[in-house]
């Protein structure tokens, strides 16, 4: 009886397992499992940076996006725009209706760039972001195991890359800022400047393409400073805890982004 039961049980389990739709596994393989990178570096004196030829002191907005700009992101602007009537409410509806890392997290900050709304939801240990555009909604969750306190004159930045379903790359940067920071402008490695939206202790920005952040110019209540971000190579075999070094992630379609490794070490 037991042998027959075991045979029947194997058949029953196989039959039940076959009820799992193929698309379900496809959804899971399309997920980006890479934790965010988290980097914090001491500020560099403006004078030193200026002497190296970088712009300093003023917010410089460069609209050129380079060859990676995509029609999927038409209307994007390097400087935040005033939201259109209903834009924020519409984004919130879309983001919070999608299945969700967002569930239960309070909205902290929204950034609008033309037709796009980037929102960050977070509590003291967990954050999630949502980008709502004319043709897509992207929800991303992130885990942080410790409450974050950022010293004055600094930002703590999470950055990541992804692609949309069509393979168009985009990058996001979000994080916490010191209490005296009133403005953040990111300088990407191709020289593009992207002005972040700042508020409620958070800053958020995103841009089409896979450029990485080289530095951030911080406007503070006492002046301005520049914080640089080095991209150290991940130590061989490192990563048993904390940030992973899986590199850039995949997009919604599961297509490889082809982006370069950005670095994973954390320095606080």
């Amino acid at each position: 009886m037991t042998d027959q039961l075991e045979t029947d049980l194997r058949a029953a389990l196989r039959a039940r397992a076959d009820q799992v739709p193929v698309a379900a596994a496809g959804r899971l393989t399309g997920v980006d499992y890479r934790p965010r990178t988290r980097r914090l570096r001491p500020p560099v004196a403006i004078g030193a940076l200026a002497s190296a030829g970088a712009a300093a002191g003023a917010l410089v907005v460069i609209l050129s996006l380079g060859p990676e700009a995509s029609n999927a992101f038409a209307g994007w602007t390097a400087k935040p725009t005033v939201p259109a009537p209903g834009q924020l409410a519409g984004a919130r509806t879309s983001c919070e209706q999608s299945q969700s890392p967002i569930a239960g997290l309070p909205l902290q900050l929204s950034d609008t760039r033309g037709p796009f709304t980037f929102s960050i939801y977070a509590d003291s240990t967990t954050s999630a972001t949502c980008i709502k555009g004319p043709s897509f909604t992207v929800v991303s969750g992130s885990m942080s195991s410790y409450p974050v306190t950022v010293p004055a004159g600094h930002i703590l930045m999470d950055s990541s890359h992804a692609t949309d379903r069509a393979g168009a790359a985009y990058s996001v940067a979000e994080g916490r800022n010191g209490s005296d920071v009133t403005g953040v402008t990111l300088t990407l490695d191709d020289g593009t400047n992207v002005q972040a939206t700042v508020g409620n202790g958070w800053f958020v920005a995103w841009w089409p393409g896979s450029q990485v952040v080289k530095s951030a110019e911080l406007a503070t209540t006492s002046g301005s400073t520049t914080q640089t971000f080095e991209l150290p190579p991940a130590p061989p075999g490192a990563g048993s805890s904390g940030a992973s070094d899986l590199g850039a992630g995949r997009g919604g379609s599961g297509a490889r982004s082809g982006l370069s490794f950005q670095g994973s070490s954390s320095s606080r």
Partner: protein
Amino acid sequence: MNERRADFDRFVAGNTDTLLRTAYLIVGDLGEAEDLVQETLFEVARRWPRVARMERPVAYARRILVNRALSGAGRRARRRRELAVEVPPERGADTGPTYDIGGAHHELLSALVALPPRQRAVLVLRYFLDLPEAEVAAAMKCSLGTVKSTASRGLARLEQALRTSNDTRSIPT
């Protein structure tokens, strides 16, 4: 680093389907099973440099999955996941009752559903994945003896349930 990332991608591509089916058989709900697998892969990703050096990374993933399935951690930690899609996918709950126990195996599957979760998990690992008892023990984080006794009790309960069902059917009305 790209090679390491490619290794992880291959791991995901090669194991997600089986992990999902295993989770589904244990928890009986497709949406929850997807959550469990997502949580499991997120955890594997976080520790991939170490996991990749293991002899069998999938055994590590399986252990996380089973532990979460039995502890309910997947349900509690749903929001700690990353999902990037152009259109939000349908939720598991919207796909209808996927835990269909009808058909030729109705009685056996009904009895399986009624088992305590640990017994069901052991039987799934043993008879769906065809894992040796030692690997089941590793996945369940218990002793070999516990696996044997749990499986034995589970099979006995299934057998009893089937016998009861047959007896009920044979009663003339």
